[in-house]
């Protein structure tokens, strides 16, 4: 497994036990609505029966008003009890939802240590809603990839795909992430098979994620010409879908051009890459970029230039 010392240095040994989180986050069995109905229905029926018997009993005639009053109170208690149970359940669900929302924000803001800590909290016990677990696992896989825990990330992606609950686009995004993790893990055969499966679903010129994946595979396996070709035909889709992550594609193309001995063009691609993304982030993500970085000049943001 390839670990990057720079990003793992601040992580403790037991940091994000992915297998444990997968196991422990299995859904909390919800109280079956049928049984709740049976319990409350049964209690109401019993109340009805008792009140009817007591009202009909001649020996209790002097206490009729008391019987009726206590029946009303019991009915009220029953209804309030049910209301409390619903309120308690809703509050727990809301708390879980808030945790998930905070986690999504932390991942978006790239505050990785805090995101890792929160995902650990969220998934360390049974989760109430399947959607929350799916989203939590999706974010866990992103965090694991950020910390170069590619093998664990593949495991999490597999679990996500096995649930069969992801919609088409989400399943596709998970498959792209999984294939990327496999490539980083140097499991080239598995990665190639994953890419072929992805290709069956979409054309490379329509999917920015798939294009980036193919470019990385071609750079990694020493096929720079193919990488450049893929870049050219899918640039439009990558622009639309990847946003600033297009910098990764430019950086990989710089590697491909460098390998083909075209340093001037490689310099342009390298400068484009570093206009879109910080060099530190690019070299952290791709060892290939780190190896060519000393030979080229990175673009400087106005803050660095100041």
């Amino acid at each position, binding site marked *: 497994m390839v670990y990057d010392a720079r990003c793992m240095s601040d992580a403790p040994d037991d940091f994000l036990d992915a297998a444990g989180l997968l196991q422990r986050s299995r859904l909390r069995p919800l109280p079956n609505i049928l049984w709740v109905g049976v319990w409350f229905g049964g209690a109401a029926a019993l109340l009805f029966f008792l009140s009817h018997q007591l009202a009909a009993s001649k020996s209790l005639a002097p206490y009729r008003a008391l019987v009726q009053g206590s029946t009303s109170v019991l009915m009220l208690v029953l209804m309030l009890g049910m209301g409390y149970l619903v309120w308690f359940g809703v509050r727990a669900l809301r708390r879980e939802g808030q945790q998930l929302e905070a986690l999504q924000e932390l991942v978006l803001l790239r505050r990785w240590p805090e995101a890792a800590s929160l995902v650990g909290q969220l998934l360390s016990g049974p989760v109430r809603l399947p959607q929350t677990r799916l989203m939590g696992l999706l974010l866990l896989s992103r965090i694991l990839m950020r910390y170069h825990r590619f093998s664990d990330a593949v495991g999490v992606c597999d679990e996500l795909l096995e649930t069969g609950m992801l919609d088409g686009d989400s399943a596709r995004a998970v498959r792209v992430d999984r294939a990327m993790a496999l490539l980083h893990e140097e499991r080239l055969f598995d990665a190639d098979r994953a890419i072929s499966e992805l290709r069956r679903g979409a054309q490379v010129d329509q999917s920015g994620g798939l294009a980036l994946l193919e470019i990385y595979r071609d750079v990694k396996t020493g096929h720079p010409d193919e990488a450049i070709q893929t870049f050219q035909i899918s640039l439009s889709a990558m622009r*639309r879908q990847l946003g*600033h992550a297009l910098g990764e594609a430019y950086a990989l193309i710089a590697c491909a051009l460098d390998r083909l001995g075209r340093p001037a063009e490689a310099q342009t691609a390298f400068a484009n890459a570093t206009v879109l993304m910080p060099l530190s982030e690019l070299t952290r993500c791709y060892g290939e970029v780190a190896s060519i970085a000393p030979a080229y000049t990175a673009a400087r943001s106005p803050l660095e230039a100041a």
Partner: protein
Amino acid sequence: MHVNHAIERCRRDLRFSFVVRSLLAACALVLIILGPGLGLTSSSIVVGVGAVWVVWTVLNYRGIRATRLASVSPMLIASGEFDQAEQHIDQAIQTFSALRHVKLLALHYLAALRHAQRRWAEAALAAQAVLGLKLGRGTPIARRTWLILADASIEMGDLAAAQHAIQALYGQRLSLPEAMNLCLVQLEYQARLGQWSAMMQGIESKVQLAEIMAPAAGVKTEALLALAAAHSSQPRWQQWLTQRVELLADVTELVAQAPLLAELWPSCPPGDRADNRS
């Protein structure tokens, strides 16, 4: 579905559902508190309260079903399947529910749909209707609706309404997506007014926000910041941001969508926006 009809329908249903809810609550209370005093037997009180409970549950169930129906629409809107989203919203609006939030949610999604369809006037109308239903200032629906209203107002050229909507969001605790949305809306508003120095304030954090926005919104944000940099004599920022935009988007398309940006790329013709002002 016409927005005016949808608003009327929602208002009528909200009034009716208020009456139904009040009646049910009154029935239950009368049965429980006054029942023994009125000479009702305990069994008839239990049956009466049970009947109220069943009616309440059935109405809530219909409400939950309608909520589920409407809740699919944000995903459909995001994937550009506007017709399907409209069907879902229409069904949610037509279904009677005792729950108030069902109608609010459906109307809010209708505003979001019209906004995505760039039917600004209708989006603003639906948003104003949602906000007129006393949502409570800090609720997520209210915040998102103010954002829709602000953007639609800017697109219609009604800058006073846009300013009112933006001000309504000041001081509220926004989620990250809402903060990103507000950042873009505010930049557009300030660009129309030529408030370039205000746009340049905190430019580093605005650029950071742009980097995590959806690609189209991120590019537009950086293009507006580049414009502000050009007007504020900040050539380094202008050059860097312009370069980013050119790498990330087709500037001709961008200028066609936001003619204000033609200043940065004079060779690109601004698009005809008349169709967007419906």
